[in-house]
């Protein structure tokens, strides 16, 4: 019936890519308070860089001289993509590195407007940058212009079995995701994370305690945009295709919703948000299978549910599903509060066990002998 394995193989790569994006956005928005509404720009840059580099290298090495978007080139790519494993892997790694560097550089340069305007304006500024980039890519002939690119060589194209091929890619994506998560967790739970949070709260005050705010912001944008670029490169390799129409503003909004729902200033919140959102898409699609002939299209309901969910979660959990926590550095140890969460957790579990015990005792009518219960009040 329900094939959990193939579900995971199809769901996890997209989840992984979106999770990387939302982790990056969480670093920018949740920690440093930079309202980056142009995330899709860096994502797109990464995808285009990866597509262009890999296809060009392959075509050059195999001596084809077709334009990058022509059907001949695509067919040729299909023919040569699986021939040399080492080339596939090395081109993949090279593309990721280039995507990181170029997207990061773009982010670094875009940080200039962040110095000049407040948060609300910053969002619109980067957003317009994203739109400008999309229009520009449509006219940029080397990457295929409006045609985009097709036939980007999959890093594991040389594996004949598609299930193994996709699983390897999935494992790779998740490995990168975990790497990014660990990196960001280490970043966040360090004095650096503390500085970022102070910038988010009040950048002027942060400046007044000697933190070079513009520099910190620019560097963070470099890293976060670069990693978004890596996510874009992964997306390009996963689909095997890149077109400018894929990188519209709606993608940014989706990632934003993930971060806000999951919980700002919390990497695991961003992860949770990404998984909830991408799962929601799958789960609500069951509506289509159940009600195929209603007067109102179930598809509309699906999207309505998404919208309503965002509003409801914000109403009842304004800080997101997992709220922000104080960062964990060794400083807490000095005050003897290091393992506090663990202690609280154990206490909570003990309390729940206690309640259960009392409920069972009450049901079977046995005297518990302690605590304020119904028997206790009767006795008096």
């Amino acid at each position, binding site marked *: 019936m329900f094939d959990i394995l193939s579900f995971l193989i199809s769901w996890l790569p997209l989840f992984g890519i979106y999770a990387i994006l939302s982790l990056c956005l969480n670093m920018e928005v949740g920690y440093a308070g930079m309202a980056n509404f142009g995330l899709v720009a860096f994502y797109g840059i990464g995808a285009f860089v990866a597509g262009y580099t890999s296809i060009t290298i392959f075509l050059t090495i195999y001596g084809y001289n077709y334009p990058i978007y022509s059907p001949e080139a695509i067919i040729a790519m299909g023919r040569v993509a699986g021939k040399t494993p080492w080339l596939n892997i090395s081109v993949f790694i090279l593309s990721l590195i280039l995507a990181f560097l170029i997207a990061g550089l773009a982010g670094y340069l875009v940080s*200039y407007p962040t110095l000049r305007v407040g948060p*609300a304006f910053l969002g619109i500024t980067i957003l317009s940058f994203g739109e*400008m980039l999309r*229009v520009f890519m449509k006219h940029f002939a080397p990457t295929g212009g409006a045609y985009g690119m097709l036939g980007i060589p999959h890093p594991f194209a040389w594996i004949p079995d598609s299930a193994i091929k996709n699983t390897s890619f999935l494992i790779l994506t998740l490995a990168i995701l975990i790497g990014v998560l660990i990196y960001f967790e280490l970043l966040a739970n360090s004095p650096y994370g503390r500085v970022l949070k102070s910038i988010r709260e009040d950048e*002027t005050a942060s400046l007044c305690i000697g933190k070079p705010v513009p520099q910190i912001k620019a560097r963070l944008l470099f890293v976060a945009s670069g990693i978004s670029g890596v996510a874009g490169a992964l997306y390009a390799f996963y689909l095997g295709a890149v077109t400018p129409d894929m990188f519209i503003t709606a993608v940014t*909004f989706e990632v934003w919703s993930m971060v*806000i729902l999951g919980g700002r200033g919390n990497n695991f919140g961003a992860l949770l948000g990404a998984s909830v959102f991408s799962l929601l898409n799958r789960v609500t699609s069951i509506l289509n299978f159940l009600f195929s002939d209603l007067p109102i299209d179930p598809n509309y309901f699906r999207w309505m549910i998404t919208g309503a969910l965002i509003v409801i979660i914000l109403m009842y959990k304004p800080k997101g599903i997992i709220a922000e926590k104080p960062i964990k550095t060794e400083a807490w140890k000095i005050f003897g509060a290091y393992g506090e969460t663990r202690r609280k957790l154990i206490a909570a579990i003990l309390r729940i066990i206690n309640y259960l015990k009392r409920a069972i005792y009450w049901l079977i009518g046995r005297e518990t002998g302690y605590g304020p219960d119904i028997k206790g009040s009767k006795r008096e």
Partner: protein
Amino acid sequence: MTTELINTVWYACIYGLMAVPLTLSYRTSKVLNFAHGVYVTIGAYIPVLIAKGFGIKISPILAVSASFATGAIIAMASHTFVFSPLIKKKSTPVTLMIASMGLWIFIKYAFYAVLGTLQKAWMTPIFYTSPNLEIPRLISFMGMDIDAKLILIISLTAATFSLLAFFLTKTKVGMAIRAIADNPELAQITGISRDKTLLVTWAISGGVAAIGGFAWSLFAYVSPETGDNVILQVFACSVIGGLISLPITFVGSVIISSTENLLIVFLNRYLGVELSFRPFLSFFVLLLTILIRPPAGAGGGLPYRYRLRSIFRVFQREVKKNV
């Protein structure tokens, strides 16, 4: 060249009608409202639906009032059910913004559902259409034939803005709105009910945006995506106005509209820039505006002196450290 000028006027009016209420709502409630595009879409659709539903030609006055009322009701509902509770819970502006995004998605697809049902019931396509208006096509004026819709839109814009100006400067409620916008704490001390004032503000901004939608439907066809497709330009206009000043927002609409209709023509004619760079240009103008002369409300950033020099400084530092 006349066509281009007329187009500029059209666009300035339409963008103005859409952007000014956006600025008003942001200034008063501090919600960067992404659902604004939905008010526009619905405002554009209401005359269409009335005309189709009753099979009549709708008079412009009825159309405008129906648009205004619907937009106002939806905006008030969004305030009552979403923004007001969130503001009471002291949510951050970012939370409010995302909430407006959720609301946008919800209303948009709810509206899609309504349209889908209506299309089936009426057996006529309404996903891309225009209202059936009861106005003459051309008006003769001093020997020239002028598009009646152009006259209508100009007078509509003028009337809306003068009413708005009168309302905000002369009436008690309007002054309360401005007081809330400029200093919420102080206004509350003086006994102005914040929630009620905000409700009125939302009604006005939703209503005027809906009129903007109607203005759009005079000019071009409407689809459920109309509002979303113009919203980025509308935001650009508001940002030029600093999200604070209503008159400068209108100036912003004029700037964006002339960029899109005059500048691109100029560039196309003399520099051979492709026409399809049109959206690129409007955002480019926006970026230039922000970089050269940050709008009045763009505060919240670092001290100004710092900003001017810092980019060079940052570069210097990086180079020194890494090379």
